[in-house]
């Protein structure tokens, strides 16, 4: 009998959560609350409660004011974010429970949120959307860690996971190694959650928040991918920083002193593709550098935050305020202009792929595998994004996944692990060690950063620019089998590079396929097809792993016949009938 214990250190649990960020912690807490007898374990490559995106950003969480109609908000989201590509049922559900989830966070994690004098939650109405915001203390995640420990959640820190184990297509564990010692770790579980974030590239500051190893592992386990072409995130930031010019999008000026926001995006106080195109044009034509003029009267600073929110009031975080002071200082340092209210700005381009396809409980297409948190934002297709709601997303998705996983784990058996699969993955994971080649994983990241981030590739795509990236991907894929490492960190990077390239490939293959333009904050924009095409493209572009191990694309009609909101002139495709029976 082959003994798996001889291959590495084995941990057994009922519920395994991969990733100890906000979503992972919420998932684990919810799972153990639903099933106090369950054995819940979090594995994290850094330190649970000190990792993940929420530690770096956010000062608010989205909620609904009691007087706001959820149906109206749903409609606003459907029409204004990534039009008509939403799973409207999930979006409605998401919006109707988001205030409850903030309350949950308060009750179970002791989260500090903005309060009225009577102790109720203080909310600010967003001037533009139908939603409200609640201030939230950034250190909430540390409290979540303690809550989880107190409830009996087990935590294994500093172990990086690269593959999900399956038994006849059902997830039954995961494998990875210790980031310090390189020791192989095998996790055996009934239910597995990928709370790993997706794959994010940022050009400025070269900051990576996720490398797509979660996407890669889920994909190889059989999870499907959806909406990955909407991975482009655009932002205008103070030069030399990653900090967005929140509230300054309608106040962008060129060196001639002209407000170019008014020229290119006259009616949009938010960021938009035409505005970015205009910015690129201005600089190319010699009227740069551009700056934001913050001296204009207050009432035009409409998207700077939530209406009526002030520092020390709803904005809870001393760290955030200190950070903003630091930013102001930095903006000054990099600015060629007189400091003060006219800091220089630049475009920040990011790819943020969060494409793992899930159902309404954030379960993937693989039995026993869930994907709460950012990893499934586009994939779940609720698309109810409001900027700054990363924490809200983590809580909502974590609560749903945790509950569903607990239900599943209570009755599911612990499936045996496949010895040969563990051996195969172990060999694959350690393969780059001491390869007699000299390609380091950073070669790949340098390549992506240097050549992959032009505005022509990320914002205004064309067939030519997409093909250029796909060609790069082909070249990079040749290098990946030759990557070499001699320590656990570089070894991890080898796999991160491979999975980043996998995400990149799917993003651009889908982008090539989608011959139209759509979306605001996460836009897909094709130069040749600048208009939205509802006739042909009310479709989801999906991927699954083909038999050769490569991504295989397939299209799926967005089931608008089931949903309340449909674009003008929408016709129910053949073979379907109107299945929406609620109010419109």
């Amino acid at each position, binding site marked *: 009998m082959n003994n798996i214990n001889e291959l590495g250190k084995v*941990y057994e649990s009922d519920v395994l959560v991969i990733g100890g960020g906000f979503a992972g912690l919420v998932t684990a807490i919810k799972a153990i609350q639903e099933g106090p*007898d369950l*054995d819940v*374990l979090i594995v994290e490559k850094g330190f*649970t409660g000190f990792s993940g995106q929420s530690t770096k950003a956010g000062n608010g969480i989205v909620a609904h004011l009691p007087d706001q109609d959820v149906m109206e908000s749903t409609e606003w989201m459907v029409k204004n974010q990534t039009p008509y590509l939403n799973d409207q049922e999930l979006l409605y559900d998401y919006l109707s429970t988001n205030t409850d989830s903030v309350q949950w966070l308060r009750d179970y994690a002791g989260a*500090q949120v903005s309060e009225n004098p009577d102790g109720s939650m203080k909310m600010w109405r967003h001037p533009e959307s139908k939603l409200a915001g609640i201030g939230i*203390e950034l*250190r909430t995640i540390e409290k979540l*860690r*303690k*809550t989880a*420990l*107190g409830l*009996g959640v*087990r*935590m*294994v*820190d500093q172990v990086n996971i690269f593959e999900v184990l399956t038994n006849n297509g059902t997830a039954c564990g995961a494998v990875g190694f210790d980031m310090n010692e390189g020791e192989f770790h095998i996790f055996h579980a009934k239910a597995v959650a990928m709370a790993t974030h997706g794959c994010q590239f940022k050009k400025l500051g070269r900051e990576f928040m996720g490398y797509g190893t979660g996407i890669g592992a889920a994909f190889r386990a059989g999870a499907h991918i959806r909406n990955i072409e909407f991975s482009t995130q655009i932002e205008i930031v103070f030069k030399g920083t990653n900090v967005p010019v929140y509230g300054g999008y309608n106040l962008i000026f060129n060196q001639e002193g002209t407000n170019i926001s008014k020229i290119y995006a006259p009616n949009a106080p938010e960021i938009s593709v035409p505005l970015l195109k205009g910015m690129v044009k201005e600089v190319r034509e010699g009227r740069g550098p551009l700056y934001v003029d913050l001296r204009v009267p207050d009432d035009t600073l409409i998207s700077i935050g939530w209406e009526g929110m002030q520092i*020390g009031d709803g904005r*809870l*975080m*001393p760290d955030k305020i200190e950070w903003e002071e630091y930013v102001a200082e930095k903006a000054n340092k990099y600015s060629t202009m007189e400091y003060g209210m006219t800091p220089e700005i630049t475009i920040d381009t990011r790819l943020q792929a969060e494409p793992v396809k899930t159902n309404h409980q954030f379960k993937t297409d693989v039995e026993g595998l869930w994907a709460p948190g950012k990893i499934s934002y586009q994939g779940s297709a609720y698309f109810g994004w409001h900027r700054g709601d990363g924490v809200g997303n983590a809580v909502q998705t974590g609560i749903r996944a945790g509950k569903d996983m607990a239900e599943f784990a209570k009755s599911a058996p612990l499936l045996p692990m496949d010895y040969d699969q563990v051996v195969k993955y172990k060999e694959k994971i350690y393969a780059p060690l001491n390869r007699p080649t000299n390609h380091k994983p950073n070669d790949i990241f340098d390549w992506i950063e240097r050549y992959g981030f032009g505005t022509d590739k990320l914002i205004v795509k064309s067939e030519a620019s997409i093909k250029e990236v796909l060609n790069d991907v082909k070249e990079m894929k040749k290098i990946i089998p030759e990557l070499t490492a001699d320590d656990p960190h570089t070894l991890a990077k080898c796999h991160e590079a491979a999975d980043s390239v996998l995400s990149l490939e799917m993003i651009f293959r889908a982008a090539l396929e989608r011959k139209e333009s759509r979306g605001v904050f996460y836009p897909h924009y094709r130069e040749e097809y600048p208009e939205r095409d509802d006739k042909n493209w009310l479709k989801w572009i999906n991927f699954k792993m083909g038999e050769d191990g490569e991504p295989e694309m397939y299209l799926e009609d967005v089931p608008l016949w089931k949903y309340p909101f449909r674009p003008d002139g929408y016709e129910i495709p053949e073979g379907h009938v109107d299945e929406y029976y609620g109010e419109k």
Partner: protein
Amino acid sequence: MGKITINVNTLDIEVESGVSVFEAITKRQFPYLDMKIPSIYYLKGVVDVDDSGVCIAEVDGEIVNASRVRVKEGMKVVTKSPALYEARREALKKILKIHNRDCNGCVRCNSCELQELFHEYDFTDEPQLPKENLEEIDLSSKVLVRDNNKCIRCKRCINVCAKMQAVSAIACTGEGLDAVIAPASPAGLAAASCVNCGQCVAVCPVGALSEKDQTDLVREALDDPSKYVVVQVAPAVRAALGENFEFNIGVDVEGRIADALRHLGFDKVFDTKFGADLTIMEEANELLERIQNDGVLPMITSCCPGWIKYAEHFYPDMLENISTCKSPHQMQGAIIKSYIAEKEGIAKENIVTVSVMPCTAKKFERLRDDENGAGVPDVDIVITTNELERLIKDREVRFEAMHHKAKFDEPLGFGTGAGVIFGATGGVMEAALRTAVEKLTGEELENPEFTEVRGMKGIKEASYDVNGTTVRVAAVSGLANANQLLTKVKAGEADYQFIEIMACPGGCVNGGGQPHQPAQTRLVTNVPAERASALYRNDDNAQIRKSHENPSVQALYDDYLGVPGSERAHELLHTTYRPR
């Protein structure tokens, strides 16, 4: 107390009136506003004013000692300014001049209150004190280590020893940073009447006082294949060890400890809860015998070795009153080396018994006369909660990854709810009452809870009507409180049948070997009470809540000991005392 409004850092806030500016602001707690006055000497109930020079604030434009100025309506306070930063830094510089900054080799690294300020006030490369200036470390005590080179003259140890423990084994002459702090005997701590309670260790903000680390002995035993290493864990440890791994205060980590000890490689992992149940069997029997046969009353508990040594020093005439029962872990040690040795077929000489205790005095207790029931020492090594933390970290066991529902090994791993509350003041009393009352009345108790003896009060009294006789009891924690009560008893002003005495204020949960919490946390949170509540929750969730119903204890009597108070029980489980 009323509320008043003061202005702190330009914000109007409501605070408690009648307290110092420091206490008012610290108690109010603004997790999201930078409103904090640092402190290093202050400790609630021990050192009430902080003259270190760091506990300062600007009050109405003037820099004052924030622990000496009372809040007044409309007062304007600034807690953070360049002037305050400089002044606090200067004060810290002076303290660092007398503090040997040997952080890497210090057991208090990471739980040191000075280190915390050191980082906050941007000290980076202050040199260590020159070697030739260092004083010799006082290693005379078998339990405690005193390193005067680290002492920052806060006088917390002096106050706690004199005021709360009425021992005064350590004294002080002089003022400020030039003060000389030394044991009451020039020959060192061992020669003073120190009772080894370790409260000085518990209050020390730095590493000037610590327990004698014996983790090396444990490692040696674990690594020796010829030894059968058996560990037991006291009730109070599970209510506190989590704090050393960043758990919330008051989280019960019983299962995780059992799992961690197994990972450390102990051959048997037992729970002192069992020994506690056994103690109740013997002690309740002794109490009933004394009541029924006109024996010496009041009977006083003997679980606490700090109290025992205190009695031997200061109440030699009352030694007859003290129960002859050994403390739970000693009893359990004796049973391991007799009953378990026979059962498992292992020579008792090859067994190493390790006790994990919240207590420093237990290190002394194991060396007392008549603590070797099976002809070999009952307990070979005692380590504290903090030493267990070091052992776990040293052996790279992932404490957070341990199972929270792991179980101790049978048969000495099973204890009742009565056994677990031993860790809180009043717990031994309550556990004894659960058994004694049932034995006296012959009826089952409807509610096993005796809430009158619960809580953090220093002296708790209650009387119960049992079968027509009134049983008067008292539970005391803190030796100064014990002193007060016993003075009354001796003067005939108080009359009890049964008294529980615990040396540490709040009981074992607040023992000298328990995790350190910074003074500011202790001002806001009642740490011993939180830990005690974890034990009461554990009791509440227990299937069996009375010691005499413990099936493992019953089996032990049936198979081996006979009945409580039998000859064999006396040989193994009882001890003697002598005046010192």
